[in-house]
């Protein structure tokens, strides 16, 4: 079974998101912070009259913080349980076809990646980590609570 994957760059690493989950790729300009929300919630933004909850993937993966000060960020818009989220990534690269089912990565990864990844998939551009969108949105605190 081949699946289309969206290759994005998070924290300098090329990873894959299942493209079926991604509605669109946008550039965010406004970002309204949500005081008191979990740290990986970067804020709210609006896209075509819809409110997007913006997720900072780097924070979600415990890899530091995306610098939002320069204004425009690229983000992948996904829908989960009726809510729309924008996942801030460094860069959106390409859409490729997966050549294999995800297989577990047996080497030790960072805790954030360990939590959020589904496994490794083969593509024409080499192996990529397939990332679980829901885990990115849940962030690191949900894990701690569970």
């Amino acid at each position: 079974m081949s699946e289309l994957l969206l290759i994005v760059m998070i924290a300098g690493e090329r990873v894959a998101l299942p493209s079926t989950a991604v509605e669109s790729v946008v550039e965010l300009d406004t970002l309204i912070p949500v005081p008191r929300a979990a740290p990986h919630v970067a804020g709210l933004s609006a896209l075509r009259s819809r409110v997007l909850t913006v997720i900072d993937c780097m924070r979600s993966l415990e890899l530091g913080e995306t610098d939002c000060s320069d204004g425009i960020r690229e983000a992948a818009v996904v829908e989960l349980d009726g809510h729309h989220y924008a996942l801030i990534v460094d860069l959106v690269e390409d859409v490729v076809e997966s050549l294999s089912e995800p297989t577990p990565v047996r080497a030790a990864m960072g805790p954030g990646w360990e939590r959020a990844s589904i496994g490794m998939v083969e593509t024409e551009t080499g192996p990529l980590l397939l990332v679980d969108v829901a885990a990115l949105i849940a962030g690191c605190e949900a894990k701690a609570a569970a």
Partner: protein
Amino acid sequence: MDDLIADFVAECREMLEALGGEIVAWEAEPDDRARLDSIFRFVHTVKGNCGFFEFPRLEALSHAAEDALADVRAGRRHPDGALVSAVLAIIDRIGEMVASIEAGEDMPAGDDSALIQALEPGAEGAAQPAVTAVAEAGGKSAAAPRTIRLSVELLDRVMSTVSDMVLARNELARRLRESANDVPVDGAFERLSSIIAEMRDAITRTRMQRIENLFVGLPRMVRDLSAELGKQILVDIEGGDVELDREMIEMIRDPLTHIIRNSIDHGIENPLERLTAGKREIGILSVVARQSGNQILIDIHDDGRGIDGGRLVEKAISAGIVDKADAAQLTPREQLALIFEAGLSTAKEVTSISGRGVGMDVVRSNIERIGGIVEVDSKLGEGTRMTLRVPLTLTIIPALTVSIAGQHFAIPRSAIEEIVRANGESVTLEHLGGAGVATIRGRRVPEVSLAAILGLDSEVDEQDRTLIVLRPAGGDVYALSVDRIHDHEELVVKPAAPAVMATGLYAGTTLADDGSPILLFDPAGLAEVGGVKLETLERSARIVQGESESVSKATAVLLFRGLDGGRRALSLAVVDRIEEVAVSAVNKAAGQLRVQIGEAILPLAGASAESLGDGKVRVFRLNDGQHEMGYAFAEVLDFASIDNEIIHAEFPGEISGVSLINGEPAELVDPHWLFSNHVGGAARCKEQLVCLIPCWDPWMQNMLRPLVEAAGYRVVDDADDEMPDIVVATVGEALPEDATERTIWLRSEPEPKNKKDQSIYRYDRAGLLTALKSAGAGGAK
């Protein structure tokens, strides 16, 4: 009842349509069990319903068909052609009758016995359907409103699309504003806007349902319950035509049922008890719905034994909900409110109907979840009244937008009790051990800073912020300080993502007109995160409130119409008198309009040179204790008092805010601003003079104090150590020795006792003001 019949007709038609195919198939294959069953179900339903509606002909027909079909189902009879056609004839007849019911006609007279007889085993052929008036009904039925049935999901989808459309329109509006103006485009956009608004209205109405749908089941429930309990209860329902969001109706169904069960079970006594108590043996339970603004009020009132507040308190103490010291201080209302605490029930014994002590707390939380309030009021021995207040709809919420550190937020209007300025006259802000306490007109209210809750830095000084007194659904007030208040908007609120909701602070998100997202606060959540101990603080605060309650909240104002036609109000205390002057007496001199009244030339506000016209103009003569000025107006409307919330203007100006007065909005004229702008630097108080007024005298506190304050004094009482500049006292009263020089003596009789008497009659307003003014002038030196 009409609605019920409409439902019944709709149901019948639906089943008849569905049966259309089945009947034909059954005719071809009379042994087909599934088809037989569905036909049987139809006649059975019709029979059941028409017994309820008193349609005897329908009932007889369906009953006969049901009997025959039951025999077939039980295998007692073989479905032969004759039976099939007899049943079909009956179904056709039912269809005709339903059609005539739908057209609103009386049930046509006619004889169905032939049809019924045809069902008998061995009957010869099907009787010809009797031709009745029904046949002509076809033409008329077109007059009935055409309806279709839609799934609720579809409606919801349309509704949410329309909401999105409204938001999209707002965004478009913003973009249009930003880009260059193009008149034709603007015109087209205006048209689009109005169409969208109309559409939203219509769609909102499709979601509305008459609350009757909720009420129809009540008489039956009351009847069943009262029969079971051996009570006699008359149920009185009013306001079934009030419309409410369909979703909302579902949300209040359970709480309402629960409250009514409670009333019947615990409230209304059995006939014997009622007679002993001197009441009629039939208890009355009334359920009344009415709309009030954007809220629906549902009153459930019984004339039963009432709730024993004392017993509730005992129970609450033994259940550990309140401690003894607190309990002693509860007001009767608070005692009753204990009924909403988890684990309390006054019922002596648990019955199957209600009262396991898991009732009212669930009722309250259910109602609060939809932004409503439950209130209880009860008189022991006389009855109980429960009031449910619920918002009209869940999706569009009137809200106030505020800002803190440059970021905008929205607060639902339903929770806002009042808005005051932190540096306002009757407001003081103190910090006790780091906790904020605001004293608003003698009431101590816990104060939390929005900046602190959100962890934001506010550049606005604490004293310059605005306090919003909030009463979250739970019923305890607290004050929230925000940087600035912006606007009142109707917001289309959508639930926020779980990660945002997890903060507990927000109730949802929405888009402002400029297209940027705004978070809507949950007032109860803010209090919780802000660490406000609502219950305990509120109760202890009441004691303070009790003492100072005599200082009435209402401010007396003069309601008038300005020269420009605006409905305005001006504090009565600053108006000295009303003068009528010729317009020629008004001149522009030394940079502003001035009016000559008698020997005095006063600055004039409320008018421009153009708006005066000719002839005469009426002028309020305002007095701040030192200076006088005029304020032109068209006519005095009324004397009134402000007891509604005041919405303050964002920026200081002639109008300090608006409030509802006698049911209509009126602008409040800010006398302070008037004087500071028109009288100029001279009017700005050097230092506020201090006036001592005895605190034990209610007349002085209620009547005199505002006057003295308006005259520019700060009022203190005996308890303060401050040295007063002036003392007001009643004749015959003992005074501190050092105060005699600067005392204004008041007497209660209009006439002085003797010529030496320097005292002033206490309603001699002019005299009083003159005395205050001259004393002030002396004191200021």
